[in-house]
């Protein structure tokens, strides 16, 4: 069957054209990664791969030899042999032996991976729709990490940057050469935390905590993504891990702790409208996943936040909006009373995709985002919402 050849030729041709014309890296294979475990996984992957290639060459070689020589057009006359118990037993036992040879190194690696004991530090990773939260256990610091790529890049309005979709506002920072235990969980749906350079991924499951570990060899920035379908923006919740030498890490830890303390103190003072609007715009980025940067929402699913915009959808979504004073009888969005508005942001609307953010946003952030929503896109409700007021509403 020489006609199988055009297939290979065509593929090679296409590949050749592309590599000539495009700057890209054409990564073909798994990364060996930067941990002892990821190296072992890479070696295991290559071992199994080459065994498969060898078997493939033998099996397909025999088949294509037969296809070429035992064809009627070459005058081949069919033999009539069939059934041989000896041969059947042989080609059952030989694969079993090969499989045992594969299973031994695989088992060793697996046992090594599952040993999360004697960790130097523990970080809890929580998946949210659609961002990650990192909590350094025992250090009293924690923060959210979400996509930094500009929406204009995604929609093709500007050029895409080097780390398009793989860049975040606040990366996870870890020290090199220390055993970091990573606990994964989630707050809403199942996510999976995956950085290929670390050699594994782990599901983040609401209500359950999974354990894994990594001991990174070399300082650097390692990028990954959520690997379990988690809804609309599953493709837009990247992971960035920055591994630092111990002194750099210690400095980062001290700075981060100081910043967290001053953030906590800022809730007690009176904020001006301009600074609330600026901070609100920043916080609103995570609301924009559903309600859109334009505040217009998505028809039938996520209501607009703009006063007077019509909205229709399943009654289960409309009814809670109406009772809270955010939807008029003729199906138009209204920006309702401030206390109800704060309640929606803090507690969410049960039974709808709107989650409560009391646990995720500080008083300052809630006050800022409410100020932003009530004074943007033509909304003009004048109020500068104070953090102290949010504190009393919690």
């Amino acid at each position, binding site marked *: *069957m020489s*006609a199988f050849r055009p*297939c290979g030729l065509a*593929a090679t041709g*296409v590949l050749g054209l*592309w590599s000539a014309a495009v700057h*890209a890296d*054409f*990564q073909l*294979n*798994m*990364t060996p990664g930067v941990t002892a475990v990821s190296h072992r*996984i890479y070696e295991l*992957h290559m071992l*199994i791969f080459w065994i498969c290639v060898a078997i*493939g060459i033998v099996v*397909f070689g*025999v088949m294509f030899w*037969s296809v070429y020589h*035992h064809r009627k*057009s070459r005058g081949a006359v*069919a*033999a009539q042999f*069939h*059934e041989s118990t000896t041969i*059947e037993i042989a080609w*059952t036992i030989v694969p079993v032996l090969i*499989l045992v040879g594969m299973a031994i190194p695989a088992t060793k690696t*697996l046992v090594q*991976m*599952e040993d999360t004991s004697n960790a130097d530090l523990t970080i809890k990773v929580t998946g949210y729709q659609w961002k990650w939260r990192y909590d350094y256990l025992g250090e009293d610091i924690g923060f959210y990490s979400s996509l930094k790529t500009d929406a204009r890049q*995604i*929609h093709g309005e500007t050029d*895409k940057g080097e780390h398009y*979709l793989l860049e975040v506002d606040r990366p996870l920072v870890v020290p090199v050469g220390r055993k970091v235990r990573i606990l994964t969980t989630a707050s*809403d749906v*199942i996510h*999976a935390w*995956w950085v*290929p350079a670390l*050699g*594994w991924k*782990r599901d983040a*499951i*609401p*209500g359950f905590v999974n354990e894994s570990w990594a001991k990174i060899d070399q300082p650097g920035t390692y*990028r*990954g993504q959520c*690997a*379990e*379908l988690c*809804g*609309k923006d*599953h493709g837009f919740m990247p992971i960035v891990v920055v591994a630092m030498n111990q002194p750099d890490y210690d400095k980062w830890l001290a700075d981060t702790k100081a910043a967290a303390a001053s953030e906590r103190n800022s809730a007690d003072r009176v904020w001006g409208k301009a600074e609330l609007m600026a901070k609100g715009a920043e916080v609103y980025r995570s609301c924009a996943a559903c309600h859109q940067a334009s505040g217009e929402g*998505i028809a*039938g*699913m996520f209501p607009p936040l703009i006063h007077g915009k019509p909205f*229709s*959808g*399943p009654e289960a979504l409309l009814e809670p909006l109406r009772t809270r004073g955010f939807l008029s009888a003729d199906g138009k969005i209204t920006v309702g009373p401030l206390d109800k508005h704060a309640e929606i942001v803090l507690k969410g609307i049960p039974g709808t995709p709107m989650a409560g953010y009391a646990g995720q946003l500080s008083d300052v952030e809630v006050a800022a985002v409410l100020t932003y929503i009530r004074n943007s896109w033509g909304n003009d409700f004048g109020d500068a919402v104070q953090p102290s007021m949010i504190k009393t509403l919690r």
Partner: protein
Amino acid sequence: MTATTAGHDAVHDGHDHGHEHAPPRGLWRWLSTTNHKDIGTMYLVLSLTMFFIGGAMALVIRAELFRPGLQLVEPMFFNQMTTMHALVMIFGAVMPAFVGLANWLIPMMVGAPDMALPRMNNWSFWIMPFAFALLLSTLFMDGGGPAGGWTLYPPLSLQTGAAFPFVILSIHMMGVSSVMGAINIIATILNLRAPGMTLMRMPLFVWTWLITAYLLIAVMPVLAGAVTMLLTDKYFGTSFFNAAGGGDPVMFQHIFWFFGHPEVYIMILPAFGIVSQIIPTFARKPLFGYASMVYATASIAFLSFIVWGHHMFTVGMPLAGELFFMYATMLIAVPTGVKVFNWISTMWRGSMTFETPMLFAIAFVVLFTIGGFSGLMLAIAPADFQYQDTYFVVAHFHYVLVPGAVFSIMAAAYYWLPKWTGHMYDEKLGRLHFWCSAIGVNILFFPQHFLGLAGMPRRIPDYALQFAEFNMISSIGAFIFGFSQLIFLWVVIKCVRGGEPAPAKPWEGAHGLEWTVPSPAPHHTFQTPPQITEAEAHS
């Protein structure tokens, strides 16, 4: 629906023999028929229709992924497309195609006059168009169709809008249809074999379907249970899969994959049967190891019940669980290898010709084996922590399902079209269809291995720039493969409408009872059972 009309006319043209009581004419004939050949035709037409609908969805996906950035569809619609593409292809294209082939062929292969339960047969078919009308209609509902993946994992699937109960109901309908079809097939094979057709003389297609039917009966109710629990979690306040209420979202995955893994074999065992019919025919040589093929099929079916955990290596199973599922999964390579070795030994020192069915069968052996190799790699639990939920997995299961299951269905269609229509298909067009499909499918799916290994997760509408080139190649392959299937549609229509008359046995090396009846097969066959001797048994 034009294809239905074409098929309808052709069957009429096909059996104006005058010596049989003619079926009623018009729509009523198709609504009321209890004839296994009519029902088989309807299943095949439904399957082809769904194949094009599911294929169009795949092209939406590949068009969006042609370049980085969001160009054509919103992420939510993209997720609906991936979810619906899977549901339509699995339940609408592949499974009904095999049931259609079973309907047409099993009674003729075992020398039975019809299926054992003909009225139930009619019902199991007619549920299907309604189930799919319901499923597809959810795309137009408030909040769109299901977008949480065909695996329906909670809690994500519970965020589905108004579509949710309709999706669940349509899955129930498909399940009822499948179970009834399976019961019918088992009843036919066990009760209606002609005298002398012992179990170990049955053609392999019949054997593989017998085992598949048992798998269906065992696991479809499990799926029904799982989706019903989703329904009560969403609407009746239960917490089966909600940790806050004492449930466990991972339990759904265990139940789902207890169905899902046998389901994979439901879609491949009949394919093994088809290829085991076709290769001996065109090698003009008996199947090398008939008995070991039967035992291998049964072993695969047994193993399929104890490997579901390999879909869930990353959920955080205990070490012992991971080791068990890894070893059990690796074992599947043994009976699967036996099958491949047997096909190749059958070809060895044969006298081969390469008509379209044989081309598809050989491509099946090669490309399915490649899918098997990547399956073996995925079985290695530590490496699976890297592969899981990437395009490597997408490449793997598409290799076993497209050039695997779908190619076997194409092979079967070309092989038996002369028997069904009484005409030879256009061999030139058939080969053109084969070569376009074989080349297209590899351009489409092979680069996806590289994408997965390089770190691209599956089910994302947009991707980082280093994945751009292979995605573009893959999308080009998708359009080549997709549009090539129009050639198949044309070949089938052309063959139904006319062509060189086919003799009773159009293939020199073919064996089996279906080739002893005229082409096209009369409306009723084997009303007097034939007598089977050892010499006339399977090839």
